[in-house]
């Protein structure tokens, strides 16, 4: 299965990409995705303080990510 990863702000700079398609075997939780990301993109460890949104909604550590989901990596926001 494939999920689309979107990186914003500092995390986009650290990963070097705005959009990444990630292939995984089965549905995984947000916390599992995070450790996968820290492995594949060691630079992200410089800024581990980010939230995760699944399909445009804030997720928690247990939220399951399924095929075709869009996952956004959300560093601290600074709008306004």
């Amino acid at each position, binding site marked *: 299965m494939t999920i689309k990863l979107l990186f914003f702000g500092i995390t986009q700079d650290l990963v070097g990409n705005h959009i990444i398609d990630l292939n995984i075997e089965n549905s995984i939780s947000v916390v599992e995705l995070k450790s996968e990301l820290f492995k594949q993109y060691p630079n992200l460890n410089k800024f581990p303080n980010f939230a995760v949104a699944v399909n445009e909604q*804030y997720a928690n550590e247990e939220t399951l990510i399924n095929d075709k989901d869009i996952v956004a990596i959300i560093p601290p*926001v*600074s*709008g*306004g």
Partner: protein
Amino acid sequence: MENNINIKLTAEKLNLQECYEWIQDPSCGGISIFVGTVRNTTQQKTVKKLDFTAYSPMAVKEMQQIAEKAMSQFTIKKILIHHAEGLLTIGEIPVIIAVASAHRNAAFEACQFAIDTLKESVPIWKKEYFDDGEVWVNSHP
């Protein structure tokens, strides 16, 4: 209820008069407006410009949610939240929030709630440009 909420995320310049014309209402006596502007300094450093990036579809959803929460928590009639994207220079306007209500206290409270919550939850990021470099705000490793 939808007609009482006005949300916009745009690359165009925000327009205070347009916001006022939408928010004003014959049943309302008090309008509270917050205008955020780009300051020329932050933490003693001179800012040259700001660049705002949004996760647009989610940002619009979050702004809508803030508006709906404000409508349910405060006795207000209408709420508007406009946010700009892209490059802004000193004095330009990243955000306008306007709230109309029969009585003024609810308008003030809802307006303050909306800007406070926007700054916590809406996925928009700003990069500050200085003479000697640039930083993502709130993202110092």
